[in-house]
């Protein structure tokens, strides 16, 4: 049965989400650079509460995760779910609501963090009114996404949609369970969990927010846009299927490795170590799948500056997903925990993997959305080297700082006395923090170049109207 279809894809909302995402990237990374400067010159908060490190830092993480990250994921999910389903978005008005409501939540939520409204739970700092707002927008996101899949004209649900789907479902579950609290005023609530229970619930959330948002969601992006850019099907579809289920199953267990040597039961910690190591397999399976897909499509690199970012992002993805399980081992964690090594690890993922795969996708997608060439390929190439140098410098500075901290804190002399005072160790970190500031500036510089490049590409142009193509009956829903 051949569909005679005159409908077109909804791409304007995709463009708008990409624009918001880029704005958040610049804002939140600038905040990050400022924070790193505060660790060198602590008085540059000028006695202003809203510039204070403790309030600014959650703005940085939330801005990156929910502003830059979720906007990009939402935009690319809306784009790819239409193409893989051969239908326009289900409930396009609701998609527009998601787009703007989400920005409003992140913006007002960010301001509330500066105002001191915080639950203090990492990556879940926003207070209860925002938690409710997030839940509402998230459910709408789910309705648009799964609604589009439910009305699809292609029988098979493509693998990228599974990853985006798991992002929506699991984040909803984590967010609701972890945010359960009793409000005592408009700006304050108390968690229904206390002490050690709260810690386990929080890191079940915290670890898997990283897992399903920054790994699962971005793998969805990779599984759609990499084969698209390479002009080839994914190297092994079966491998991606196996990797998906192994990923969904094993990631969720690994949270308590954030709580080694703490007051939670030993068996929970040990289980988390085992599952963290197993997690390496599905992580690397997806990496290999990506690398092999692109390895046969190298001619594309001649014309497309975007593919480079995705290729490099896979290398850093490989690093981050190896480093994570390694740091989950108790004998490594005893040194690395509480140090800047953790900060370095997060950034090898966030800068090297998440940001780079997003940049690659944006450089690919934006010109196509408005039907022109990228404003400047040269600027994109410069951006590539800035991003690489910034990430490397950041990781190495934090390795140096983290290993020094971990080692010196634990150092004792022959008679069992501590070798170094905390104060001395802390003040010897300044050079590393200076190096990290430089790294952040380099990476931010690249991001600003991209923002300019994409702005000039989009300027004054409107989304190209793309008609939904007819479906090959062999793959249609009634086949």
């Amino acid at each position, binding site marked *: 049965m051949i569909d005679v279809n005159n409908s077109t894809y909804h791409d304007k909302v995709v463009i708008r989400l990409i624009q918001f995402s880029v704005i958040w990237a610049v804002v939140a990374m600038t905040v990050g650079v400022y924070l790193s400067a505060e660790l060198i010159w602590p008085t540059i908060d000028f006695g202003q509460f809203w510039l204070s490190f403790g309030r600014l830092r959650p703005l940085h993480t939330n801005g990156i995760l929910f502003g830059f990250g979720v906007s990009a994921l939402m935009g690319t999910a809306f784009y790819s779910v239409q193409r893989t389903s051969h239908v326009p978005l289900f409930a396009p008005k609701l998609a527009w609501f998601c787009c703007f409501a989400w920005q409003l939540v992140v913006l007002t939520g960010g301001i509330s963090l500066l105002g001191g409204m915080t639950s203090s739970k990492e990556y879940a700092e926003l207070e209860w009114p925002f938690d409710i707002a997030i839940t509402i927008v998230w459910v709408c996101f789910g309705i648009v996404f799964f609604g589009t899949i439910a009305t699809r004209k292609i029988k098979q649900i493509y693998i990228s949609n599974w990853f985006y789907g798991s992002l929506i479902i699991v984040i909803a579950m984590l967010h609701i369970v972890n945010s359960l609290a009793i409000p005592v005023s408009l700006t304050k609530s108390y968690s229904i969990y206390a002490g050690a229970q709260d810690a386990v619930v929080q890191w079940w959330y915290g670890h898997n927010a990283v897992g399903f948002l920054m790994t699962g969601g971005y793998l969805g992006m990779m599984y759609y846009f990499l084969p698209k850019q390479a002009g080839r099907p994914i190297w092994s579809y079966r491998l991606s299927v196996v990797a998906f289920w192994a990923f969904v199953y094993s990631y969720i267990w690994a949270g308590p490795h954030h709580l080694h040597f703490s007051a939670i039961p030993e068996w929970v910690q040990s289980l988390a170590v085992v599952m963290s190591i197993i997690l390496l397999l599905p992580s690397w399976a997806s990496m290999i799948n990506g690398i092999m897909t692109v390895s046969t499509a190298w001619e594309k690199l001649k014309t497309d500056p975007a593919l480079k970012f995705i290729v490099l992002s896979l290398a850093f993805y490989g690093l981050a997903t190896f480093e994570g399980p390694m740091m989950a081992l108790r004998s490594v964690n005893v040194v690395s925990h509480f140090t800047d090594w953790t900060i370095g690890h997060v950034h090898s993922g966030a800068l090297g993997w998440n940001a780079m795969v997003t940049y690659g996708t944006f450089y690919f997608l934006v010109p196509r959305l408005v039907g022109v060439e990228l404003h400047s390929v040269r600027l994109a190439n410069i951006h590539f080297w800035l991003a690489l140098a910034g990430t490397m410098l950041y990781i190495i500075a934090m390795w140096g700082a983290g290993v020094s901290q971990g080692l010196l804190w634990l150092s004792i002399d022959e008679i069992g006395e501590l070798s170094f005072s905390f104060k001395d160790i802390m003040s010897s*970190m300044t050079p590393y923090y200076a190096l990290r500031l430089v790294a952040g500036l380099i990476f931010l510089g690249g991001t600003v170049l991209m923002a300019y490049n994409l702005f000039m590409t989009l300027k004054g142009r409107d989304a190209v109207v793309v008609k939904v193509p007819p479906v090959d009956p062999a793959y249609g829903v009634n086949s």
Partner: protein
Amino acid sequence: MNDRSYSFLLFKSLYQPSIAFEELAKVDPSPFNILIRYSIWLLILPPAFSLIGAANFGWRLGAAEPLMLPTNTLVLVSVAYLCVLIFGLLSTAFISRWMASTYGASTSLGRHVALITIVGEPLAIASVAHLYPDVFVNILILIPTMIWSMYLLYKGIPIVLETPPERGMLMASSLVGWLLVAAVSLLGLSVMLWTLGVGPLLGV
């Protein structure tokens, strides 16, 4: 055994890397020859510098006074350092050759060993910083050197291994992935040894 001289590996590669790469692309050296006659001399430098520096000044990790270790421990550490470097060079060369078929590149092991030697040479020379064993000073000198080395890697692969620049770029990125994982493994391994009681005294 091939007895040709490949001295361009050590000298020309420093000031005219492209020409050195092109010369390397014309030959098919024996990996053993390259390793014994050239690579090994570079690999000896970092452990030697670190031995001299640590014996005279002690390692400074930032806080408080430098860490002085007994000479026999230092010799042991330096030998281990040399072994790690040799293992690093060879394993990277083997992995690079293993990747070569995927990227349509030359599978001459000798060339892979020679290429990795050229790429690592600036780092080996910059390890002169080990003479002043302050961790931060070393990082400050070695990071720019490392960026230069990465440039050599991206530049060298397509020329030496005779593959289109685009495929070379993919291969170089894959190798960067391997090197990052290797680096972090080394870090993790050292930390594990420390917590098990080898090396500095830790209260764990």
